[in-house]
């Protein structure tokens, strides 16, 4: 049995027929072919699949596609203003070498943006580390991810994003 589902992803209206059990991340990856959002675990622990749903960071492996009916979804693919102008968080990750293999990166970036906003662009190292507890990285040892997020916070504020 399939169910029709519709939502806005990165500003575009999308729809599809899914099974009741289809996860949001499956809908994004398998139905829409948007493979920037990754799946790194099966217990909602790693955070590689984080996207924004109606402005809040959400693990898209922990939400059914049908639960996102009518929602505004933002994924890593929709973050940069243009091909040449990255979001300040993406830029900070690049400047600070906050990614190696790149697999956890989309989820890290999406979580980090939400974190900066929730803390009104004011963060310290301890807060960043505590707030990152939902995102695993095996390559960077977190050192440069923390640096990148601390650098991005004021950059996001001055860019007004």
């Amino acid at each position, binding site marked *: 049995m399939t169910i029709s589902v519709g939502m806005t992803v990165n500003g575009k209206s999308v729809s599809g027929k899914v*099974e009741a*059990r289809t996860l949001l991340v499956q809908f994004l*990856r398998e139905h829409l*072919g*948007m*493979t*920037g*959002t*990754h*799946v*790194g*675990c*099966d*217990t909602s*622990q*790693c955070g*590689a699949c984080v996207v924004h749903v109606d402005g809040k960071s959400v693990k898209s492996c922990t939400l059914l596609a049908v639960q996102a009916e009518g929602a505004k979804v933002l*994924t*890593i*693919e929709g*973050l*940069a203003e243009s091909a040449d102008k*990255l979001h300040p968080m*993406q830029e900070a*990750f*690049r*400047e600070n*070498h906050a*990614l*190696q*293999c*790149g*697999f*956890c*990166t*989309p989820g890290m*970036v999406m979580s980090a943006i939400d974190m900066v906003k929730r803390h009104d662009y004011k963060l310290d*190292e*301890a807060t*960043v*580390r*505590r707030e*990152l*507890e939902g*995102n*695993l*990285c*095996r*390559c*960077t*040892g*977190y*050192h*440069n*991810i*923390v*640096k990148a997020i601390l650098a991005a916070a004021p950059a996001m504020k001055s860019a007004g994003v």
Partner: protein
Amino acid sequence: MTAATGIGARVLRTEDKRFLTGTGRYVDDLPLARATYAYFLRSPHAHAKIKSIDTSAAKKMPGIVSIFTGKDLVDAKVGGLICGWVVKDKHGQPHKAPPHPIMAVDTVRYVGDTVAMVVANSHDEAKDAAESIKVDYDVKPANIDLAKALDKGAVEVHAEAPGNLVYDWEIGVKADVDAAFAKAAHVTKLDLINNRLIPNAMEPRAAAADYDKGTGNYTLWSTSQNPHVLRLILSAFVLGIPEHKLRVIAPDVGGGFGSKIFCYADETMVCWAASRVGRPIKWTAERSESFMTDCHGRDHVTHAELALDKDGKFLAVKVATIANMGAYLSTFSTAVPTYLYATLLAGQYTTPLIYANVRAALTHTAPVDAYRGAGRPEATFVIESLVSKAAAEMKMDAAELRRKNFIPSNAFPYQTPVALQYDSGNYPPIIDEAMKIADYKGFEARRAEAKSRGKLRGIGFSSYIEACGLGPSRVIGQLGGGVGQWESAQIKFNPTGNVQVLTGAHSHGQSHETTFAQIVSDKLGVPMEQIEVVHGDTATTPFGMGSYGSRSLAVGGSAIMKASDKIIAKGKKIAAHLMEASVADVVFEQGTFKVAGTDKAVPLGAAVFAAYVPHNYPLEELEPGMDENAFYDPSNFVYPAGTQICEVEIDPDTGEVEVVAHTAVDDFGNIINPMIVDGQVHGGIVQGVGQALMENAVYDKATGQLVSGSYMDYTMPRADNVPSFKLGNKVTPCPHNPLGVKGCGEAGAIAAPAAVMNAVHNALAPLGVKHVEMPATPLNVWQSIQGARHAVAE
């Protein structure tokens, strides 16, 4: 070339843009028309006889395409998986090599052993159908406890390896070492467990395969660290598909840490079944499967002793280790606890006599093979734990005892008693720098301050040596390795002057696309943006050995240097012709060929264009084109070394250990990109801290169930488990490769566990705690504290 992008510059990464915008292409991202999806049914038992497998109900489930079992492979006369390194035991006999069926036929030997492959129109349908397969198991007792695996009467894993012994191997002369111990003023003894780890690259293993009926060609996409070697193994030993009919592509790969070096059942089955199913097949491991079936790492039980004279000079070391191989011998498993472990037991020291005995044991657990550092972290942990314990016992400063025994700077090349000849090194300035950065002098004040807050503060050293960038191939062959250890490179200019650099190495996080381009940019004067580094596809890149063992730069980078030299040599001939000069008078500087003492000049780009449009060109003497390849076989290993200093604070009421400061000073030889090198060290340290404090692969000793089979049970380090790090570096260039480089990929993980645990022991020493095993979890530490208190009370 320029300071901004050349060797030594902090160049931002070429690969970042695609990873940051969600346009990386990992195996699971691959769009394949008409794809089917595989799901593997895995054994729920550690040891059982398979009485029957009934797939009839599963075959009727919706969306099912095919179901394969081990019997199908037997019927098709497909062989098993192989171990590619023959280790000879102390009697010169090759290791016991029990068969390793791709899928179990009549016996399952670990929880996760592959039992059936279900192929369906979707992943969910394949998984649903797998649940309907009825397997009648006759469950048998399992051999799980490594310490008892070789005991008389232990349950045998394979009839081909009596008593579960794969080999009983030794290095050194035991009688000489025993004689030295007899004369020692002090002997430090240590029993330790090097805890079993699960690598956990963030991208789970994945494979996809397509068979082209018209050409008979197979394409296999795999999360491989070494696609050419995977193809070689599949072709020559496992599936028999000729190499030229099998293309292996390892696209973007999300971390490896060793676990993606090996040839696994899953990718083998996906490839084999693709031609039988007649449609492409995709498979991606769920994380639970990764925990169960990725090759695990470490897992040693060791007794070690260090003999010292009255002044603290090391006289001899002896080590006895049981190393867990798991249920089957994985691709390079046999080499890890022998040639990559016992040969490192000299550390940074002049210890004149070393004897090590290693017995490799089979157990009913997942196969164990190389994981970041592979043998070298285990060796470093043994030696650096012994040294710090000896310092405490002899009431000497831990740094001073190390310094007293360091190989002197003027003693290189230095022949150790355990086969290796260290090519270069200068250890005292490294520890000096580390102590300065860590403010060692201020430690006692920090300890006192911590005490006023009720915390126990400790400091620990770890001075590691690593042997990486393996080679020469001749030596690897003499030691039983089944492959060469050279690397390849091809530098292919296009007529318009931009260039593709093809490498046989593979990047799965290491940043080759940037580092290798920097080398070419520096050497040939081509701007970074005109260089494309290509890797990971057997159809487009020259045969290469892949990336592991911190070899990519030392070996692969050297191959790029050799190919660059060939480009320059050819370019000189072309330029000489264009400038009507003698080749001997042509020099190459900053991307331009010049005739010394004249204003004649030909940019490399002009020589390249002439090579592809050879209208004015010495065609009688020189072939057109500018496309050179090179193979580089190293003349020795490279020997990075360094010192890490860790400071911890322990809450005695809860046993919680906090790493409050961690310093690493390394000598990696010349550095191409310091930003990338620092990143490698950061990541390595956290894997080492994870081993020391958090990570542990636990099997239930009675049933063999993997207890730590998810991220809720296997504690991967998270951002709030570690601090930011303080790094430093010293440079003694490698004398035998053209870049003067050593390897940096594994150092962090090699040194960190001993630094952390020495700090833990240092912190707990005032309470009388003698030994804490890794991982030093709060429970483990708390129990150690209680044990020591009881001992005092009694």
